[in-house]
């Protein structure tokens, strides 16, 4: 008993402090949580930063990961207010199951690229993956990652899938895949254009845009989840996605916007 008392007493101010801190953050500003596909990492960070310039009191917390995982988590009641999926099929399914407070809003088409940190991939095509010097090729897991599915389609369409399958390693999501290539553990990989154009990655090697005829379109969509139904900030941020600023940022990261046709 005595031991417990000794332990507890010095902790009291800390406990009260934490309670106060929590309370204050709830009381003085609006806050939402976003679940976003990993390909949005750089673009969404920038959009949130721009949004905060004009709305400094609002707090936007973005979490990045695989679209499939977020889909499951939202079904199980995860506290996300907005869900941006790299494959529009996931939010459509959530909408059908009653987890959405909005229509499914298409926000972009993604593109895939061949990217290497050590070679100039801009001078390569999918056929080059057959080269004996290339022993590891990273793609996202086609089983559940939208970018992985498209990568597999493109490799099959180019007729190289069977030859390079033994060289494949699978990332959990597209950012994880890029990390395999960035560390050089895989010499080359198929990643999202939105990640390859980021200065951090663009400094090394180079990328080759995979022709979009080789795979089904990567249509991406978002929803406001059921739990955010009464949250004005969720609506406000959803609206901000179609602002001039957001659209410019999305385009900068190589996303094709739904009402524009692709360039090639």
């Amino acid at each position: 008993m005595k031991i417990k008392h000794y332990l507890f007493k010095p902790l009291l101010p800390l406990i009260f402090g934490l309670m106060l801190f929590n309370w204050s953050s709830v009381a003085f500003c609006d806050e939402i949580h976003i679940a976003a596909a990993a390909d949005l990492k750089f673009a969404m960070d920038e959009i949130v930063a721009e949004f905060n310039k004009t709305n400094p009191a609002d707090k936007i917390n973005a979490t990045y990961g695989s679209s499939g995982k977020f889909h499951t988590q939202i079904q199980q009641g995860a506290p996300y207010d907005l869900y941006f999926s790299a494959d529009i099929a996931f939010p459509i399914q959530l909408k059908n199951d009653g987890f959405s407070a909005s229509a499914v809003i298409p926000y972009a088409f993604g593109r895939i690229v061949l990217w290497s940190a050590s070679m100039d991939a801009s001078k390569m095509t999918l056929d080059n993956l057959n080269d004996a010097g290339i022993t590891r090729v990273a793609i996202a897991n086609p089983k559940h990652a939208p970018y992985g599915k498209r990568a597999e389609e493109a490799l099959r369409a180019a007729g190289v899938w069977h030859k390079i399958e033994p060289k494949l390693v699978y990332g959990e999501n597209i950012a994880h895949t890029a990390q395999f290539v960035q560390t050089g553990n895989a010499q080359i990989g198929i990643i999202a254009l939105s990640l390859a154009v980021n200065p951090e990655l663009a400094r090394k090697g180079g990328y080759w845009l995979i022709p979009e005829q080789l795979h089904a379109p990567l249509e991406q969509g978002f929803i406001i989840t059921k739990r955010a139904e009464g949250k004005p900030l969720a609506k406000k941020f959803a609206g901000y996605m179609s602002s001039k600023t957001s659209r410019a940022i999305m385009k900068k990261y190589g996303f094709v916007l739904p009402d524009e046709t692709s360039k090639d």
Partner: protein
Amino acid sequence: MILLTDSDIQAILLTLRLAGVVTLILLIIGTPIAWWLARTKVWWKSPVGAVVALPLVLPPSVLGFYLLLAMGPNGPVGQFTQSLGLGLLPFTFWGLVIASVFYSLPFMVQPLQNAFEAIGDRPLEVAATLRASPLDAFFTVAMPLARPGFITASILTFAHTVGEFGVVLMIGGNIPGITRVASVQIYDHVEALEYMQAHSLSAVMLIFSFTVLLFVYIWQPSAKKWK
């Protein structure tokens, strides 16, 4: 109802093979470390003990991150393995073995160390008076006395390697039959919304883990009679 696909069974067999190899390797390198930690009185015993215990508290992502960089083409381990003509370790079975040896080290060393410490000095002093060399005394006195410790340590190491996930995800590359272990396979099933298959494989893991722990706990009383 438990329904396992061929790839589930492949993942289970791979997991058992990985855990078996890791347990054998750790028996060989963990035993001298544990023996030394139990007997030595040098001041740097504590730092070594802390290093051995690190994987207990380190997030697997930290270990995975360092291993990925160290074993990559620009890392020291990667350059060493390449110069030997072995290529790179990430995305290979032996890469997972090395990662798991680090990751499961405390599960082998700590129970063994406890078992060796419980023996105390007396039996070894008696052995010395009977002219047993230190090596003799270790194999004929200490090892038989520490047998329950060896069994507990091996089971825990095996089970902990089976339960590994984060490190494997970071350096494995999810290759069927080579690095796609059961825990990763379950994760994939869940991500792909294949809940039925995730349930089956998870049930197998649950039953396995419970059985192992039950065995360890039932074994405990017999360990006591040696103290």
